[in-house]
């Protein structure tokens, strides 16, 4: 051993440190390279946290007096809504909004409000809205659109202007019926806002023991108004039971189902109850495509209107009922429908009012009413609705065909 070191000691002194450098240095430089990834991950997390912090600070400005904002977890709320534009006939027609984030906002001394970031569904999914809700008033103090996939043009989503957003300012939660007025041309988007607002209230109630007021209105019967004295002014009539005392009343409704007048009972309905009646009526499956204009009992002439393809003009049908009040004696149609425009030149039959006349004639003759190829989109439903309404009226007079 001694001889070995005497001969090879210096060689070992050269090789061993080189090996040590190779191994130690290799480990060290590998560690350094690994740290590059670690630092990159740390930086990514830091940037995310910073972005989150900036985001929260930005949201905090929705409460001018706020000094602190803190992320919070929310209670679970199971609530689904019909996707705007869908019929609600299938499970796929429903969706559940998602609370993506929530923050508790405080001033120097106390918690003053909460912020919810909620993903709703407008015309398309991904409508993300921010709601600022104040504890003191249980009301929305501000709303922001964070993201959306709506059709972002002046004709659609951008129609939601200042007036639309203004309705959310100080929108109170402690009301029985929460309504967001829709904007024509952006109705699905508007509905997306409304759903998000309703969900925000549900979430707020679950998180902060807030009780959502309820409206006690029960519809016993909602139907077309077939009373010739009033049906021109009030197309619908509803028999309701309302209030904690379960009062009964019969009310007339306008063509848009809004409350119009009392038919019987005391006029002590609150606005929310009236809104609830409208809500119930709109779900009753009644058609608004046709309605009565007048009825002359002496001549047994009833004038009706139907809303077909041409929105500017209704289809007017005048029926003269026979003396037995059981059938149509004669009828006339005044129509400005434009089948060619409506059906993109697919319609090849005779001119207006061929479709209307044919359908009414078939009804009068007791025949089944044919679908008319190329005219089934607008005109046909309008006339079917009108025939159905007339038939009900005729039945109410004592007959019917």
């Amino acid at each position, binding site marked *: 051993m001694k001889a070995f070191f005497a*001969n090879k*000691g*210096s*060689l070992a*002194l*050269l*090789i061993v*440190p*080189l090996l040590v*450098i*190779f191994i130690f*240095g*290799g480990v*060290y*430089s*590998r*560690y*350094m*390279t690994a*740290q*590059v990834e670690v*630092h*990159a991950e740390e*930086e990514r997390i830091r940037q995310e946290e910073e972005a989150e912090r900036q985001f929260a600070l930005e949201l905090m400005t929705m409460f001018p007096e706020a000094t602190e904002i803190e992320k919070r977890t929310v209670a679970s709320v199971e609530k689904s809504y019909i996707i705007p534009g869908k019929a609600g006939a299938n499970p796929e027609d429903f969706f559940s909004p998602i609370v993506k984030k929530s923050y508790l906002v405080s001033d120097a001394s106390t918690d003053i409000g909460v912020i919810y970031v909620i993903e709703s569904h407008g015309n398309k999914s991904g409508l993300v809205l921010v709601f600022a809700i104040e504890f003191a008033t249980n009301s929305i103090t501000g709303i922001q659109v964070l993201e959306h996939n709506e059709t972002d043009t002046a004709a659609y989503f951008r129609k939601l202007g200042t007036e639309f957003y203004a309705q959310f300012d100080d929108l109170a939660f402690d009301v029985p019926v929460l309504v967001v007025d829709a904007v024509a041309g952006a109705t699905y988007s508007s509905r997306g806002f409304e759903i998000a607002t309703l969900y925000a209230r549900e979430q707020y109630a679950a998180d902060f023991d807030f009780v959502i007021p309820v409206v006690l209105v029960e519809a016993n019967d909602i139907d077309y108004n077939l009373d010739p004295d009033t049906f021109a002014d009030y197309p619908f009539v509803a028999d309701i039971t309302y209030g904690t005392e379960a009062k009964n009343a019969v009310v007339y409704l306008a063509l848009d189902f809004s409350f119009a007048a009392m038919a019987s009972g005391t006029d002590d309905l609150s606005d929310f109850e009236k809104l609830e009646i409208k809500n119930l009526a709109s779900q009753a499956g009644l058609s608004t495509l046709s309605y009565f204009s007048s009825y002359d009992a002496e001549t047994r002439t009833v004038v009706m209107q139907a809303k077909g393809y041409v929105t500017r003009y209704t289809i007017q049908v005048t029926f003269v009922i026979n003396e037995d009040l059981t059938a149509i004696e004669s009828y006339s149609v005044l129509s400005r429908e434009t089948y060619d425009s409506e059906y993109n030149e697919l319609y090849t039959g005779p001119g207006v009012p061929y479709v209307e006349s044919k359908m009414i004639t078939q009804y009068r003759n007791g025949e089944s009413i044919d679908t008319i190829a190329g005219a089934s989109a607008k005109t046909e439903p309008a006339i079917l609705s009108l025939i159905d309404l007339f038939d009900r009226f005729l039945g109410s007079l004592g007959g019917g065909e």
Partner: protein
Amino acid sequence: MARFAGGKAPYLRIADQPGQGTNVVMRDFLIGLLPVVLFAWYKNGIQVYLDGNIAIMEMFYPFVFILLGGLSSLLMEGLSFYITDKENRSLKGLMKRLHTSFSLIPGLILALLLPLYTPVWVLLFGAFMASIVAKMLFGGFGHNIFNPALLGYLAVGFTLSGVIAAAGGALNASEVLVDTYAGATPLGILAATKQIDYQTLVAPYGNLWNFLLGTIPGALGETGALAIIIAYIWFSVRKVIKWSTPLIYIGTVFALSWLIGIFAGDAGIWFPTYSILSGGVMFGAVYMATEPVTTPKNPWGKVVFALFLGALTVLFRFIGNFPEGVGTSLIVMNMFTMPIDNLTAQMRSAGLRKATFVKGGLLVVLLGALIAYALFKASTIYSLSIITRIFLQGVM
């Protein structure tokens, strides 16, 4: 006219006087490396640690890496001596030979030329190329043609640059966080964009003061211009190097870069300043263009060497495929050291004669042609980029 010792014989070699020998020169050289080593450690280790971006183990890495470079060279040369000199295999004999071989220096300089995240096995490969291939195979200290550290650096650069980039590259943990750096060195930006534009080349890194201080991305030792200047002053005072060589070299790069900037439509003094403060110009000028073995020994030769070196640096940097240019030009000029030395020695000893003017004229013509070509090519490339930029601005 040649200078001769005056006075009466016998004469004593200055190098043999106490405090004047090669050992002293090399000691002074090592001292001159200290500012750059310390700055490299501070910039890539201490400061980054103080920024809170790395752990303490990472803080020591730049310093350890540089030391490992020097140690690797020392050990490899030791092994070389052990293998080739069977008479001196004892520890004492090896130490003596290593001492006179200045074996630490190639590895130290090599480490300073490499990026921070160079794997140690790459450093060992570079040290092998430097100490064994470039130095020992040529006969050891005093016999090598190429600057050992430079050859090691180029060998690594040409073969393993991808490995270095994959391991983390040149930017330290603080620099990677700076969005404006975009992961690139200043010369990398120039090579990628081919645009002579202050906003593109300098603004992302702050201003030119940062270039002078060295707080810009780059290899471990090359960015610390101020530290290099301190070393230059030390070397000049201690007469370790000929003070004029770095100035002529840097001056040439400065002047030619300025001309290129002018041709490209930007006559600002910032561009030549940027040019000399980026990459390895300063480091090469002070530590390698003055290296006593691989550069000319006579004063005229040093001037010629520095002028050609400057012209070649500009040619390679602005026209070549790689962003740097200093290393390549130095290695090329290393090959011409002997002819330059001979030629200029003849001219110097011949004095002001026709032959001197002919040889001098030949050198001037050669240099002029090289400069003209470099300027022509560079101005074509960079003028084109200006036109392209204007076109794009017009379109957009």
